[in-house]
Structure formats: structure tokens, C-alpha cells
């Protein structure tokens, strides 16, 4: 990792024993079912951030919410120095906890549901979580924070992690090139739908659901067209080779 002055400052601020934690790549790797990972946040951090989230509807994603949360959790005001990125850490905590909590919020007992319908349900459930935690009215502030240059890498990583999580929970088992195209397209659709949700005033977010349905329909049509074209090209190539072989060309 290249050491910009800001990154160097953050490294030097971290206690020496915790510096190896900074080097860990948060990108998803081999997922073990038996050797489970420890939780992503330490107890103190999680306590402060979770109580700070309860102040977000009133205060927004700001340093004030963090301070009030720290006091509420029984820590000193100065404890917010644990979070060098300030309000963005609150946004990130919300993103991480909602992503990891998605599998507990929704289960699919009915095995007949197709992968596409499951993806739709998961996206809607994740968006509903924004509303349930009372964060959706302040989410435009969060989007603004996420779009700051220093926060963009983390935001994109969280978005791709969420997309991966949704496809995994929907039961997708493809591991060829479509792995990349599916996740990229779902990331785009989710981001667009989330932005739309921040302006949605309808009851129960019906307009957001219809927006999502339109985007998923577009994806289905586009993906189908591209897939069919590639298949046709493949068939033409194979047919040409077989034709030449039948004419005696030694290939």
C-alpha cells in the first residue's frame, strides 16, 4: 500500500500491536464454514457505532451522532478518535452490518423460487433495511460521504461485497465469466435503486420496487441478447469447421 501523508499519519496513530490489522485486505477470500472469522468490529467500536446509528435520524451522518453515541455507550467523547474517518465510519458500519445481517433477515424455504426472483427479494430486503433502521431519510448525506475521493475505494469494495453476498444467498453457483458480469450488473442496479429510494415518497416504497423491476427486466433482455449472439457465433464457427472436415480438409 502506497504511503500518502494521510495514510502514514493513520498508521502512526494506530498502536503498534494493532498495525498488522491495517494491512489486512478486506477483499473477500476463501470462505471457511468450520474456521469462522471473528466479527469485523471490535466490541468497543461496535458499541459506539451501533449507539451512534440510533442518533442518525436526528443528527444525520455527522460527528455529533458519533459523539452522542460514544456518550450513550458509556465512553468518553474523546473515544471518537478511534474513527479517523469520522462520519464515514458510521456509514461503513451501517453498510457492513446490513450486508452481514442480510442472511439472517431473509431465508428461502421454498426451493422452487428461481435465482432471479431470489435476487429481487434480497435487493428489496436490503433496501427495506435502510428504511427499518431509519437511515433512509439521511442516506443522501451518506452517499455524499461515500463519493468523496478518499472514500471511493472503500465504498466500491462494499458495493461489490454486497453484490457478491446477494448472488451467493440467491444460490448462484456459476463460476465462469458470468461471475463477473452478474456481480458488475447487480452492483449498478443496486446503486441506482438505492439512490432512487432516497427520493421515493410512495407508501411502502412501491415505486422503488417497480424501478427495480424495470432495471432487472432490462438486464434480462440485454443479457439474453448478448448470450444468444455469442451462442450463434459459436455455432457458426463449429459448423464451419465440421463442414470443412466433411469435405476432407484435415483439420
Amino acid at each position, binding site marked *: 500500500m502506497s504511503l500518502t501523508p494521510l495514510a502514514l499519519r493513520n498508521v502512526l496513530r494506530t498502536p503498534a500491536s494493532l498495525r498488522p490489522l491495517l494491512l489486512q485486505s478486506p477483499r473477500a477470500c476463501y470462505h*471457511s464454514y468450520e474456521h469462522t472469522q471473528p466479527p469485523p468490529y471490535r466490541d468497543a467500536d461496535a458499541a459506539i457505532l451501533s449507539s451512534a446509528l440510533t442518533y442518525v435520524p436526528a443528527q444525520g451522518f455527522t460527528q455529533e451522532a458519533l459523539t452522542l453515541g460514544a456518550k450513550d455507550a458509556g465512553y468518553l467523547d474523546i473515544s471518537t478518535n478511534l474513527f479517523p474517518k469520522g462520519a464515514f465510519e458510521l456509514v461503513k458500519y451501517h453498510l457492513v452490518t446490513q450486508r452481514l445481517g442480510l442472511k439472517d433477515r431473509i431465508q428461502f424455504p421454498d426451493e422452487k423460487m428461481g435465482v432471479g426472483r431470489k435476487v429481487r427479494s434480497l435487493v428489496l430486503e436490503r433496501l427495506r433495511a435502510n428504511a427499518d433502521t431509519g437511515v433512509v431519510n439521511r442516506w443522501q448525506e451518506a452517499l455524499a460521504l461515500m463519493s468523496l475521493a478518499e472514500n471511493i475505494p472503500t465504498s466500491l469494495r462494499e458495493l461489490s461485497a454486497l453484490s457478491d453476498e446477494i448472488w*451467493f444467498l440467491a444460490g448462484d453457483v*456459476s463460476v465462469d465469466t458470468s461471475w463477473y458480469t452478474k456481480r458488475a450488473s447487480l452492483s449498478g442496479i443496486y446503486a441506482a435503486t438505492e439512490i432512487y429510494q432516497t427520493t421515493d415518497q410512495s407508501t411502502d416504497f412501491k415505486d422503488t420496487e417497480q424501478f427495480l423491476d424495470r432495471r432487472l427486466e432490462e438486464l434480462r433482455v440485454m443479457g439474453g441478447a448478448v448470450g444468444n449472439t455469442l451462442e450463434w457465433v459459436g455455432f457458426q464457427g463449429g459448423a464451419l469447421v465440421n463442414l470443412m472436415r466433411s469435405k476432407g480438409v484435415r483439420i
Partner: protein
Amino acid sequence: MAFVLPRAAVVPSLPLKARLTPLAFQLQARSRNVSARRTIISSAASPATEPEPERLHKPQPSRRKPLSAEQKKYLDKALRVNQAGELAATLIYTAQMPPINKAYPHLRPLMKHMYDQEAGHFKKFNELLAKHRIRPTAMYPLWQAAATFLGWSTAAMGREAAMACTEAVETEIGEHYNGQVRELLTWMTDMENRGEEVGEELRLLIEDIRRIRDEELEHLDHAVQNDAKEANPYELLTGVIRTGCRGAIWVSEKV
């Protein structure tokens, strides 16, 4: 012998008449010791009096630590490369089979057997990647094209060249799997030495990779038996293919 006079009204710190003469105190202490010693079991006592704790027979619950970041990265890379390798193997056989089977019908069962085994390996690694949420290599379409071209071109060069291609690829893959099995076995012995539980997941993974390595080496033997070494530009062909394999492995680990 001391006796205590009851004094209900006053609560003294020591009972009255508790003060013993030194001799009386010593005699009292000795008698107390003898009665205590009666419950101590000496080593010469019979086995029937042995204490029998439950803990002795039940195996202790072993610790299970999370995998370290390096271990997860290693498994991530290893399984990604393995899947890419099996993809290439299946496509090489798919491309080789039509011309070879047409020219040498007696090789049909052998080619089918090898193809079926490779398809089984590919399916296994696809399942592992999906289960453990490992991303496949981004060079997937490139490897598809390269493997098809390799299979088709070596088959066009003849039976010996096709077998030499198989020999070269299987040699590289066999070495690669050997390294992985050795690394995972080292992990297993380290975990056992530290008293940590290895777990079914890791154990089954090692067994699977071992079995697949054995089958790949069996393909290598078949290829050599079928005159792989008779191929005309033998050194050049196997050199190029082995270098290409090593490069592909290196790239698939990163990308």
C-alpha cells in the same frame, strides 16, 4: 483435655478454657492429624479406591482457530488455479478428440476415459469455488480460446504430438498439485502440534487434491505409453507447452 464453659451473654473472641497447655495442644493436634490422614489414600492402596474422573475417558474438546489471512489467500489462489487448469484440460481433450478419434479409432476409449476424469475434476473444482465463494480467474475466456487452440493444433500435428501435449500439461499440473498437497499437509501437522482441530473441510480438501493428482499422473503414464516421446519436435513442443502452463498458472494466481 479442654472443655468450653457456655457463656451466652458475653461473646469472647476465644472460648474460655480454650487455652491448652503445650502438651495438651500437641496431643490434640496429633489426634486431629491421624483422623485426617485416614482419608488419604497411599500409593499402595488397591485400585478399587482410585478416583475415576469423567474427564479421563472423554476426549477433550479441541480448539478451532480461524484461518489466517495468508492461509485464506493461499487457498483462494490454489483453488482458482486448479479450476482454470481443469477448464483447460477439458477443452484440450474436447478439441483433440474429433481428429484423433477419426484417425485412430482404437484410442477412442482411452480419450473418453481421460476426458471423463477431467470433466469430473472440473465439476469438483467448480463446486468448491462456488461453495467457498472464491472468484474464478478473470482470464477465463482467454484460457478457453488458448486451450481449444492448443488441443486443435497438437491434434492436427498428429497422434504423437497430441500425446506429447498431454504429457507436458500433466507433468506441470502434477508438480503443481504436489506442491499444494505438501503445503496443506504442513498446515495439518502444524495445527495438530498446536492442539487445534483440523476440521473436515481441510481434510476432505487434501484428500480430493491427492486423488486428482493421482489421476493426472495416471494420464501422464497413459500419454507416455502411447508414444508421447515419439513426437517429432518433442523438446520444442513440450518446452513451449510447459512454459505456457507455468505462465498461465502464474497469471491465474494473480488475476
